[in-house]
C-alpha cells in the first residue's frame, strides 16, 4: 500500500530470547558499578563529592557533614549590615517590606532622639522582623534596599528548626550573622554622612 510505513519487528536471536546472555550482560553492568563503588568505599578512595563535578562513583552527599559550597551569589539567610559604630544601617524606609512578595518583613520605624549621635540619620528600625518561614528567598528586599542594609550574602542555608517561633528572626538575630567573608558591614562603597570615610560635611555640621 502506498504511503504505508511498515515497521519491522526487530529480529531477535536465540541468545536474546533465552534471556541468559542479556541478563549476564546486565549483571555485568551492575557488578561493575558495585565493585567499583564498593572498592572505593572500602579503601576510602571515593572522590570528594563536594569538590568534584561528579560523573561517576557514589554521588551521595552526607549532607549535614558534607556540604557543597554555595556560589558566591547564593541567597542565604538575611543579615542586617552594620555601620562602623555597630548600629544597623537600616533606615526603616519599608522599601523591602513593600517589595516583599511574601510579606514576611515587619518593620517598626522610629526616630533617633534629640542628641543621639546618629540623629543625622533621622530614622531607624525600632523593630525589624523577618519571618523566615514565609520568606521565599527571592532577594527583592536586597534589590529594594537603598542603603544596602539588608543582604543575603551570609551563605547560610535556612534549615529546619524545632520551633516555629525560632524562624521569626528579630533585629538582633539578623545583625548577628556575618557575610560569607565574616564581615558585619557592607562592602558597598556608599558612605553615609557620619561614616569616617565620608568626604563631605556631616548633616549636623551642615549650616
Amino acid at each position, binding site marked *: 500500500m502506498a504511503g504505508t510505513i511498515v515497521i519491522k519487528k526487530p529480529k531477535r536471536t536465540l541468545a536474546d530470547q533465552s534471556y541468559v546472555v542479556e541478563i549476564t550482560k546486565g549483571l555485568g553492568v551492575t557488578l561493575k558499578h558495585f565493585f567499583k563503588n564498593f572498592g572505593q568505599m572500602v579503601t576510602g578512595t571515593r572522590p570528594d563529592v563536594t569538590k568534584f563535578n561528579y560523573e561517576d562513583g557514589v554521588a551521595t552527599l552526607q549532607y549535614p557533614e558534607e556540604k557543597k559550597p554555595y556560589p558566591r551569589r547564593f541567597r542565604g539567610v538575611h543579615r542586617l549590615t552594620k555601620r562602623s559604630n555597630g548600629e544597623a544601617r537600616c*533606615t526603616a*524606609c519599608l522599601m523591602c517590606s513593600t517589595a516583599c512578595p511574601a510579606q514576611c518583613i515587619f518593620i517598626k*520605624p*522610629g526616630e533617633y532622639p534629640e542628641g543621639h549621635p546618629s540623629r*543625622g540619620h*533621622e530614622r531607624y528600625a525600632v523593630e525589624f522582623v523577618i519571618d523566615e518561614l514565609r520568606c521565599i528567598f527571592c532577594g527583592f528586599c536586597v534589590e529594594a534596599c537603598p542603603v544596602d542594609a539588608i543582604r543575603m550574602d551570609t551563605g547560610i542555608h535556612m534549615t529546619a528548626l524545632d520551633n516555629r517561633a525560632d524562624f521569626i528572626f528579630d533585629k538582633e538575630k539578623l545583625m548577628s550573622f556575618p557575610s560569607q567573608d565574616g564581615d558585619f558591614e557592607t562592602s558597598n562603597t556608599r558612605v553615609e554622612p557620619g561614616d569616617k570615610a565620608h568626604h563631605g*560635611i556631616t548633616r549636623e555640621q551642615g549650616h
Partner: protein
Amino acid sequence: MATFKLDGKEIAFEQGDTIIKAAWRQGVEIPHYCWHPGLSVAANCRMCLVELVPGANQRAMMLDVLVWDESKKDYVVSRKPKLQPSCQISAAEGMEVKSESSEHVALARKSVQEFLLLNHPVDCPICDQSGECKLQDYYMTEQATSKRMRDEPNHKPKGVSFGPTIVYDAERCIACTRCIRVCEEVIQDPMLDMRERGNLFEIITSPGRQVDGHYTMMLEWVCPVGALTTSHWRHKGRVWLLRGTQSVCPGCATGCAMFVDVDPRENTAFRNRPRENDQVNQFWMCDDGMLSYERVYKDRILSATIASERAKSADAIRHASALLSKHKGRLAVVLSAQRSTEENLIAATMAKALGADLYVTGKAAWDGDKILRNSDQNPNRAGALKAADAESLPGVDALLKKASSYDCLLVLGEDADVAPEAIKALAGKEIVVLATHWQGAWTAVANTVLPITVWAETDGTFVNAKGVAQVFKRALTPTGDVLVGWEALTKLAKGAGADTGFQRMVDLRAALQSRGLEALVAKKLDGVHPSTGAPVSTV
C-alpha cells in the same frame, strides 16, 4: 462660557481665572509647586511655565539664545519664545496656550526640576512625603535624568521642631512659600516667614512664635514636598501602604470633607487629610479634625454589658429589645447629633412605632472660630432633626424634667450636652445605650450598653450646620464584638416588635431622599489613586 485652547483642547474659564486654575477645574494639570487653588499666586517656582501662541497681528515675545549646531560644530544664534507662568496669566477668550505640546516648555520644566533638586538631599527612603511628593512625581514625568552637579549638596538644618505638631526639614524645602501664605491668608496668623535667599533660604517661625493654634497640621498638607512633616505621621509608615477612604470629619458642625487614610493590612487608621469641598471646607481642616481618627482607638467599648456584666452583643440586643417592648408607652428615645442620619432615622422610626417621646442630645458646645470650627461640636444635629422629621426636638434637660413619666430610655450615643452629674438622677431606670466610648455621660448610668461602630467603621451621612449633606464611607473593619450601628438598631427595633422595614443602607438612603435630603456624594474622588486607592496629591 468663554474658552481658551490648551494644547488644542478647549478649556472653559470664568472671568478672572488664571490659565492654571481654569485647567485645574477641568482636570488638566499643569505642573506646579507654589500655586495652590486656595491661595494667592506667588509665581516663584517657575514650574508652571507655558508657551503663549501669539494671536493674529501680534508679535511673539522672543529671546535670543545660542543653540548647538551639529553640522557646523558650533553654537549658532537662535530665538525661542519667552515662557510665561500659567499661574499668573489670566485666561482670555480665544487664547492659545501650549503646555505639553511645547518643546520649550518641556525643557524649561526639566531645567526647573534639576535646579530644585540641585541641593535636595534625595533622602526619599526616610522622607515621609515620598509617595505623594511633587518632586518625585515631576522627576518621573518631566526630568528623568540625573543632576549634573557633582559637588556635595548644600546642607541645612533638618528635623527642626516648629511646634508640637510640625517638623521642618530645610534641605528638602523648595521655598514655594505655600506654608507662609496659608498662615497669612487662611489661618490669618503669620506664624512663618522666610529668611535669606538663593541656596541659603530657610523657613523660620516668626520671632517669639512657634507653630501652634488650631490649624497647624494643614501646613504639612499644603507643603508639596517633604519639608514640613507632622509629628503624628512622621516615621510611622509609608504613604503607599495607605488606602484613602472618603469620609467626613465628625469633629464639629462644619463637617469638613476628608479622607481617612488606612493601612488595610493592619486595619488601622494612620491619618486624616482634607478633601476638597467648595461648599464646606475648600481645602482646609483644623488639627482636631485631622486627629479625629484617634477616636477609633481611644477608650473604645468593645463588648456589650448587661447590668454592668460583660455579655455577648447578640444577648445584649435580645435583652434590650425585650426591655423596649416591655416598657412600651413609658419609653423615651434620645437621638444623637453625633451619630449618622441613617441611625437617627431608624431610632426615630422605631420611637414612633413604640409610641415613645423623642429627644436629641450630643456633645456640649465648644469654642468655635470664624475659619472652620463651628461652636457646635456635633457633626449631625441637623441630620438628627431631619431624621425625626421635626423642626426642633427637646434636649436632655427637658427629659430630666419629665423623668418620672418614663421607665425606660433608649439612648443613641454616649454623649449628653448636660453635666454628667445631672444624668445621675435618671439612675434606677432601665437605660439602654448604644455607645462607642466609655468616657460619656450615658455609659455611666446605663444598665445595658451595646458597643457600636464609630463613624469610620460604617457608612453614613452627616448634615452640617449649613444643611449640606455629605456621605462618608466605611474605612475600617469593626473589631471586637462591635455592632454596626444601624444594623444594631434595626435588630433592636425588630426584637421590640417595631420593625422599621429598613433592611439595607439603600432603603435608608431612599427614605432620607424622600424627605428632601439629597446625599451629596463627591462626584470624583481626587486624592485617591483610581486603581490602588493610595493617596495622591492633587494641588
